[in-house]
């Protein structure tokens, strides 16, 4: 009886083993149809544990990891995720900690965990794996994120000076890391199309995004995918992200706006004046801000471009919503000049150089002095030159007369002696 029982037991065991092998082979054949380089037909009948075939396990959609706090994360990988990605490397190029199986040594994963029935258990194959090496899914992501450095070292240098990195360093683990903006398996060029950029940022900065979308810049980007308007990264940078918390951001912002708004090639298309930056610098505000910018002094309180024109909500001055629309100007000025009256905004020449038609008084004063100063000072110099010439001539004449007189008396004395 003992022999029979042993035989039946072994037969059952082999049946289970054979079925599972067949099952595995079948699933691998299906996967082999997918364009995944790691899944080849030669590996289909081999133990996934030995060939390091990640998909052997991770192709199971039900596979989840369970953290100590009970929260779970999917461990399923769909090769379709990689379609169109700029990366064609295998899993292990990024998943450094999972180079060997079982993962996360020295913890040993018992065979029974997956193959319970093989060991006489009645339970179904488990799809839930306890993860003890990481506290949560974010920790896993942050660990894998380090792998980007292997190829993109220069970008890592850039992000060390990023506001996002500083937030991370202060302990906010949800500050963006590479994968948050670029994606993980589905990495594609972040600026194709260009509208993707604000969408990526909107994942965290939703309210700014909606404001930006309605601005003159954002609307043009959304509507016509305009290549000239700035997206988030044009002002805030991509890897070296800066914002108003950066001490120099405020002062530097004037060159940020000025760079595009003084470029004829960009502004000409839209009929926007390119004098705006220079006239700003010629004025009280611009002069002060520019000095602070050059001195790298962050304690700047005078108005920059965005103080009047708005930041993410910037509109064309002809738009009623614009803070520099004529009817809204007084209110805008009152932000800094609380006593500003209705005529106060007229003090501002709307960035235009003075003309006779627009500002006759200013044009007259400027033109008058332009001619008066050189004329008067020139007249002074001419007068001085004439006066000095006469004085020098008189002095020389006096001297020569004196010399003459002296020589005459000398010769006279000599004559007397003779």
């Amino acid at each position: 009886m003992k022999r029979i029982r042993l035989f039946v037991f072994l037969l059952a065991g082999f049946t289970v083993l054979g079925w599972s092998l067949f099952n595995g082979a079948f699933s691998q054949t299906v996967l082999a149809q997918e364009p995944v380089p790691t899944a080849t037909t030669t590996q289909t009948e081999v133990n996934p544990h030995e060939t390091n075939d990640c998909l052997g396990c991770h192709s199971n959609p039900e596979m989840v990891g369970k953290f100590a706090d009970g929260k779970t994360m999917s461990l399923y990988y769909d090769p379709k995720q990689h379609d169109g990605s700029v990366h064609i490397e295998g899993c292990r190029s990024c998943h450094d900690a999972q180079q060997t199986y079982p993962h996360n040594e020295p913890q040993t994963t018992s065979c029974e965990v997956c193959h319970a029935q093989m060991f006489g258990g009645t339970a179904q194959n488990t799809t839930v794996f306890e993860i003890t090496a990481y506290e949560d899914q974010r920790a896993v992501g942050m660990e894998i994120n380090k792998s980007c450095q292997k190829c993109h070292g220069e970008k890592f240098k850039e992000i060390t000076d990023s506001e996002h990195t500083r937030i991370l360093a202060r302990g906010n683990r949800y500050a963006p890391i590479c994968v948050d903006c670029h994606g993980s398996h589905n990495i594609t060029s972040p600026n194709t199309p260009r509208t993707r950029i604000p969408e990526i940022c909107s994942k965290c900065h939703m309210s700014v995004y909606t404001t930006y979308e309605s601005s003159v810049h954002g609307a043009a980007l959304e509507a016509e995918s305009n290549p000239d308007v700035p997206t988030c990264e044009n002002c805030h940078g991509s890897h070296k992200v800066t914002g108003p918390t950066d001490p120099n951001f405020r002062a530097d912002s004037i060159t940020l706006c000025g760079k595009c708004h003084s470029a004829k090639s960009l502004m000409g298309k839209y009929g926007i004046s390119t004098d705006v930056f220079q006239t700003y610098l010629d004025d009280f505000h611009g002069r002060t801000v520019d000095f602070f910018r050059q001195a790298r002094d962050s304690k700047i309180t005078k108005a920059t471009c965005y103080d009047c024109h708005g930041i993410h909500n910037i509109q064309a001055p002809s738009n009623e919503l614009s803070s520099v629309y004529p009817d809204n100007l007084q209110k805008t000025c009152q932000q800094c000049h609380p006593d500003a009256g209705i005529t106060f905004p007229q003090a501002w020449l709307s960035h235009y150089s003075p003309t006779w038609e627009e500002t006759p008084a200013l044009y007259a004063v400027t033109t008058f002095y332009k001619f008066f100063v050189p004329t008067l000072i020139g007249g002074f110099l001419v007068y001085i030159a004439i006066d000095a010439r006469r004085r020098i001539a008189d002095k020389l004449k006096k001297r020569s007369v004196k010399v003459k007189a002296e020589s005459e008396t000398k010769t006279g004395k000599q004559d007397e002696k003779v």
Partner: protein
Amino acid sequence: MKKSKVEKAASTKPTTIKRFIYYRDAVNAVKRLRVAEDGTPYVVRFTRAQRIEHFVLILSFTTLAITGLSQSFYMSPIGHFILTALGGIESTRVVHHIAAFTFIIQSLYHVAVFIDEAFVHRHISRMFPAWSDVTDAIQMIKFNLGLAKHHPLFDRYNFEEKAEYWALVWGTIAMGFTGLIQWFPAEFTSIFPAGWIIPVSRSLHRWEAILAVLAILTWHFYHSIIKTLNLSIFNGNMSMEQMEEEHPLELAYLQQAAAAIHNKLWPVEIEIPIGHLLEEQSVEMEEAIIEKNAEGSA
């Protein structure tokens, strides 16, 4: 022919100038004609208050010019250096405002002194321009060019000094108002019904500053330092030689006014002889003509 013309010119010229003076003027003249310990006579040209006023003016004007122009030309290396040395553009403005306040107070003091002199002491400053200044200027240029044979005789203030003074008066008014408008833009635009006064003020303030500094560097420095070093504004005194040279009419007046001190009835009309001054010149003229005639005959 020429000689007769000279004679005619000399004969038509008055040999004296008549002027009414009060007792106060005579006292003032006596006070101003002094003799040094070693016996050399000299004239007091400026009072201590006037000298202090000028010193304050130098300090405030220079400070305003340096702090103002460095703001205007903040992009230039010198401007940038000055602004940085003064602790940035904001603190430079504070210095500029302090100097401006001093300048304005000093200007108001000057006006107060004028009013006091004119309405309390009944003494009108001789700084007011007269037609003679125009003729003096023309004659001076003619003389310098060799077209006139004698240079004009100057009174208390010559036309060069008057031009300097009135340019400063205009500059102070222009700079003061345009500066205050920029200092208190909101307040001024609420009084003035037009906002363009601010950009106009800014432009005018900048141009006027350049003009003022250039005028001081050229006109004032030439006449008071280069031409003849005139330190009377610092030490208050002027030597007799320099008085005879630069202000002969004033010297003649002072001598006559001082001589009239013992008069009993005031005001009195004094006669200031200028004949001897003109005579010297006419002698020079005659010599020159003779010289020229000799050249022509030779």
